[in-house]
Every structure is written in structure tokens, then in C-alpha cells.
């Protein structure tokens, strides 16, 4: 069924594309927002990714790779959004958590440290972290999605986690006041 929709969309069927885009929208948005940490930028990234998907659909050689291809487009769109801002670090700001989330003080502190550690990652590193730890893709799957060798995906993941660990450890050694500044 989905393959049929992709085939139809490749032939210029707007309705088919809109069905596909609607069904993928939420998960693409989640990935974009987690990578970019900004509502407006994430919305723009998803929109750009979906417009590119429509425009470039005839070039998609294997319809079964549609989902993976969409992820790649949204990750690339996130990178574009980041580039436009010159320095991601200046734009990173913590997401406002849903008020329904209950947590204790320690885990809130942990979240802030994770936020800081994450904010120091490169765009490509953030992408692998989100795709692995949120979307649940393996390194091999991430490699396929991003079009990079599996070894590169693994090493990016490794270094990203190490960077976040280093941030947590560094924060643990610093007075709280000194950790307020984002990277």
C-alpha cells in the first residue's frame, strides 16, 4: 500500500504525497525538534524536508527506501537551518518541558546537564544520537539513512556519547552557577 502511494507520488500525485507526508510528519518533527532544540527552526526544517521530498521524489530510486530517505532529508534540512544561524551554540536553548512531566530535582539537574552536553555536539552527531536513542535505529540503519559508512555512524555515536558524558562529568565538578551558560 505504502509503496503504491510512493509510486503514485513519484508520478506527481499530490494526494498520495500528502497522505505520506501527513503520516510521517510527527516523527520527522520530533527528530527535527530534538536535533535543533527550537520549535520554529524545527517546523521550518520539516517543511523544507517535505517540500524537497516532493520535488525530488522522481529521483528516489527505491520506493522502499522512502522512510529512510525522509529521515535523511530532515536531518539535512536541520543542518541547513543550523548553517543559516552560523553558530548553533548561540541558538540552543532548552526546550520547555511539558508541565505534566513529574520529576525529582536530581533528574531535572541531569536533564539540564544532558541538554548542555547535547548542545555541544555537532549537527551530524546530534542526528545520530537522536536517530539511535530516540528513534531506535541501529548504527547500520543510521548509516543507511544518512548515507555514511557504518563505521562512521558507530564512531559518531561513540564520540557523541563520550562528549555528553564528558559534559556531565565536567558539570558535576563545577559549581552550578558556572554551568548556567550554554556552550
Amino acid at each position, binding site marked *: 500500500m505504502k509503496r503504491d502511494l510512493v509510486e503514485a507520488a*513519484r508520478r506527481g500525485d*499530490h494526494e498520495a504525497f*500528502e497522505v505520506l*507526508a*501527513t503520516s510521517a*510528519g*510527527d516523527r520527522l*518533527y520530533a527528530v527535527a525538534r*530534538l536535533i535543533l532544540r527550537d520549535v520554529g527552526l*524545527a*517546523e521550518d526544517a*520539516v*517543511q523544507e524536508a*517535505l*517540500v524537497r521530498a*516532493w*520535488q*525530488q*521524489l*522522481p*529521483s*528516489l*530510486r527505491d520506493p522502499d*527506501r522512502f522512510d529512510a*530517505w525522509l529521515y535523511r532529508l530532515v536531518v539535512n534540512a536541520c543542518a541547513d537551518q543550523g*548553517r543559516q544561524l*552560523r*553558530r548553533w*551554540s548561540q541558538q540552543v536553548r532548552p526546550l520547555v*518541558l*511539558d508541565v505534566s*512531566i513529574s*520529576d525529582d530535582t536530581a533528574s531535572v539537574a*541531569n*536533564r539540564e546537564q*544532558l541538554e548542555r552536553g547535547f548542545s*555541544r*555536539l555537532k*549537527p551530524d552527531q546530534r542526528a545520530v544520537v*537522536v536517530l539511535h*536513542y*530516540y528513534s531506535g535505529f541501529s548504527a547500520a540503519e543510521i548509516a*543507511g539513512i544518512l*548515507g*555514511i*559508512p557504518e*563505521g*562512521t555512524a558507530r*564512531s*559518531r555515536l*561513540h*564520540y557523541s*556519547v*563520550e*562528549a555528553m*558524558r*564528558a559534559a*556531565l*562529568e565536567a558539570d558535576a565538578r563545577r559549581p552550578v552557577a558556572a554551568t548556567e551558560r550554554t*556552550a
Partner: protein
Amino acid sequence: MPTDERLGESISTWLEQTAPGRLPDRVLEATFERTRGSRQQVGWRARLGRIHVTQSVAALGGIAAVVVVAATLALGSVADRPGVGGPPISDDPRDAFLGTWFSTSDADGGTQTMIARATPDGGVEIVVTDDVASVCSRTPSTMTGTGRLEGDTRLVIPAPVYSCDDGSEPDALSGPPLQEQLRNLTFVRDAQADVLTVGATSVWTREVGAAPSLDPQAWGSMWPQSSLEEVRRAQALADAGDPAYTWQVSRTGWYQPGQNHPIDTEFFARFLEQKLGWEEFVWDEAFAHRDGFVAGDVVYVRCAPGGTNPLYLDDIEGRCAPTIDKLRYETVKINVAQLDRQGEAGVWVVTGWEMIEPAEQVAPPSDAETAAVLEGFFQARIGGEGAEDFVDFAENDPFADERVVREIPLLYATSTGVPYERSEFEIVAGPLWPEGRIQLAVRLFTGNNETVVEQVFSLERDETGRVRLVYDFQPMGPSEPIPATTENGKAVPVEYGFLDGEVTYRAAHPLEPSQEAWHLGPDRTAITGLPFNDDRILPVLLILADPRPIGPSCEVAPAPVDAEGLAEVLRSDPDFEATAPVAVTVGGTSALQIDVLLAPGASSCSWSLPDGSGTSPLLLKDTPISEEQLVRLYLVDLPGGPPARVLAIVIIHADVDGALELAAPILDSIEFHAP
């Protein structure tokens, strides 16, 4: 210190907690507004399946599409050829009958519409619909038929087929049976009035040409409200959810007033339908920008309802039929604004509109024009001179800054210097609406046919009406750029420059300077294009000027003054396992070759180190190096000296098999020039 597993769980939990819910509907709506108004990027090979392009010879119908020019052809004869400087529109007499026609004399109060289109065998096919047909008990009817021209003014349909849309049999109200009455149905065209007549009483006219819906000078002000007070009331009612006003609030939340694009087309559609009475209309980028336009001017053109566009029968994008004449469309410029509340919840109004100079589609090059331009071009190439005069270069050249020479490669001879003796062309795409552009594959052969050079050109009409041949350095294929020139199927290398031409190199498609922002800069370039997983963004080779090493604590060190110093810094860095430098030659200049691998446990430097914009690039720990990725470095003292002193050529060759082999021709082509 958390374990890997614990840390991973924490990251997962944190991401899940901070992940958003649903994508706002307005984002999808905005997206679909854009996709509905944009074309898919279909390259020329994909278009072959969609448009009527036969193998070479038949592509141009009346003339041979494969123009073979023997080397012995007399030069200079092109000026005498018919078609050079000829009329811009095809001289096929059928054209005068094609398009949409409306009967002005339907006695039963219905609307009769006729669509006439050319058939490949030289005939004309008509489809006549009548929404109130007396012979069908006042139900709709359809008549079809195919005929031919007799002379230039008479279209005869020998045996029209008339049917009632509800399946009932049409019943002639008087005289012989209907099919007999309709036999040899003849439309006579009055060229001066541009009307068709059938018999003494039936008159057919082009829809708007006969009765334009709006005077070209027409204009108007606010809509749907006419005063600020009314707008404020509309805002209040929209806030209260009154559907009579909520549509004025943009579904997408915003427009792009700084540009000339309609983001929320529903608002514009309502204006066009309700205020101007237009049934079909289109916004197109080609018509969106004009001299004198200001930010927020949005232009729509009107299409003839149900009409066909006789000049673009094969382009599905060209289905918008002109309303004024064969080329021109009624055109309106619309301005919108939020006069009361700004932002997502504010109502929008049209603040002004005016009918402006009609937008015009371009008549595609005729067969005669195509043949004439190409014949002259081929003669010049085979003759060995003057071919440059026939060609313009595409204005949009993504590598204009890096390109050393703007010229057509292998213009008069093959790479080995063998002159051409034969040529041919094939139409591979187009004409594309509304610019009328045609994409061609041009082939040149040596005498023994051992070598064939193929190049991609476009034919398009310029503002003066002249058909020009355009060479595009990066033409589009079905899904991606394709080589502009190949020789025996292999892409011909193109010369690029770096450091204002102090360093040059040659790369063959698909390898080319990267367009990715993070690879660009006056002191760095990346050659990408290696096919991998459907992607072409992996850098094969990077060239960095005066690279600055990153120390073990991720600090940025000053740029070493020479290649030897840079090699020493790298070798002494505990984050690297580096081989001893080997003396080699690059571009005729002494260089040091050194292989580097990131050591186990090496520093992981934050990407947020100075990103190098406007400064020297960072080396290695900021390039895509990671464990398992071996890097081959060539360090060169630039012979030209400052402003740059040291060049690092970086090949990352554990990423993709054979990267060193792929990079070798680029490396071998590097030359140094005096700054």
C-alpha cells in the same frame, strides 16, 4: 561516572521527555500549499516517459531531428536557410484552429465549448461539450471528431460522433438524422476576427479574446472588507469562530510578504474566484518577478477554463491555456496585508489589486529555428572556427567562482586533437512551459566514428525573440546533475581554481567542488560527489590553506609556517598515529606525504570550536575524521608564498574503497600559479 548503558538510558529518557507531540497542522498545510504550487524535479530521461519524444529522427516531425552535417558542407550557407530569424511561432496552419473555443450562438441557453488539438498525423481533433443540448432533452452532450484542414481557413470533420452524456440517443429535432446532418462539419476561420463559423449562424470565438473579463487597466482596493472599521469587525468575528471570516486568517499562519510568493493560496483563490470571477488560474515562478515589483506583490495569471495550450501540448505543466491570445494571459497583481492584528490570528485583506501587463508564455523554438541554429553551430564546429558565436553560457553557474575558464570543452576536436566530421542532435526534454526551453543532446563524431563527444545544450528564446543555444555547465539529469560533456561516455574533466587561482585542479563529474556551506570558504574547498548510498556529499579530497592544528585539549594552535612544521605538530600530537613524512611531488612542487589515524582514546573536540569562517580552517579533528578513518595528507609549501603559506591536501580514504584511486587524477592535476 555512568556506565554506557545507564548513560544511554538517560539519553533515551531525556529525548523522549523533551520530544514534541504532533506536528502542527499549519506546518503541513503550509507545506502542501508549497508542494501543490511547485513542480517535481524531473530530469530529461524521466521526461522521456511522459512526453512524446520518439527516437531521434521523428522527434521534430516535419524535419529530421538528427541533423547530419558532413564536413564537406559549404560553410556560410546557414544565413540563406529558411527559418533563420523567422517567425517566433510555428507556421503550422493548424495552430490557428487549436485551443479553446466558445459558441456565441447556442440558442438553448447552454454553453458550448470546443477544444481543438493537433494530432500527430497532421490532423485536428475536436471535443465539443454542451451543458444544455436540445437534442439530448436538454441534458449535457459531447461531440468528438477528427478532421483536416482544407487550405488555411477550413477545418473539415468528416464524421463527428455526437452522444448524450446520460447514454440516451440524441434525437434530431428536425430534418435528417443527426449524424447525417453533422457529416463534413466545416469550421471556417476568419483570421482577422479570430472567429470560427459553422454555416450561417454558428459562431465560435476564443473565450477571453472576444470578451476579456477585465479591462487591462482595471484595479481595485480593499477586499473583502472596504475599510479599517470593517476589518476590525471581521477580526472580532473571526476570533469568535465565525466561518464567514475565519478563512481570512491564514491557514498556514503566515505569508511571505518579503517575497512574491503566495504561501496561503486559499486566500488568493477566494479573491480570484469571488472578486474577479476567474475559474482557473495559476501562480508560477516564471511570472512572479518583474522590474518594479516590490516585496509582497503577488501575481496570478488566468487560464482558459478547460482549455488546452496548443504550444505546450506535451508538457503537463503547460496546461494553463492563455486567455488573451496564443501567448498572453490576463494577469493580476495582488497585495495583501494584516491591517488590524498582526501574526497568526490576524485576518488578511487584499489591500489593492490591478490588472497589469499580460504575462506571456514563450513560443517554443520552431522546427526551422532549431534546425537553423544547430546547423550553423555544427558547421562551425566541424569547420574549426566560429562556433563560439552560436552559444551563450547559462547564467546560473554554481561554480562560477571556482571555474578557471568559461568555455565549451572539446569545441573543435577531441581530447586527442582529432577534428570532428559528423554531428547530430536529439531532443531529450521540452519544450517546457512557460519558457519554451528545449534540452538537447548534441553529439560530434570523428571520421572513423571512434570518438563521440556528447554535450548537453538548451535552446531557448531570448527577450528579443531570438532562439539561442545555451551551454549549461551543470545540466540536470533525471534526478541529479549530469556531466555537461562526455567523451566516449566518460565525463570530461573541468578545471577549477582555489586561492584566487593560485592553485588549480581538474575534476570530472560527478566529482566537483562541494556546495555544502561547511566546505566552502576562501581558505578551504572540498571535492565531493562520490556516489554512495544514493548520496553524493562525501568529500573525496579537501584542500586547506594554512590549516591550524587542534591540540590535545582542543585548543586551536597557530598555523605552522611551513609544511615541515605542520608535519611535526601532527606527529607530536598524542591524539594521532602518524607515519613519518615521505618526500613526494605535487604539482611539480616538493611536498610531504603523511598518513594519519586518530589514536584510540583521542580527544573528541567540540564542533563549537571556532568554525573557521573568515579564518584558517582547522585540521583533522574538525574534518570528518574518526577512528577507522585513515587520512592521507600532502603538505605543500606554496611556491607563490603569502597570503597563504602552507597547503594541506587531505584524502580520507577509509570511508570509501578506492578513494585514493579516485582522488589520484585530481591530485595529479594540481598546478601552482603565481598569485
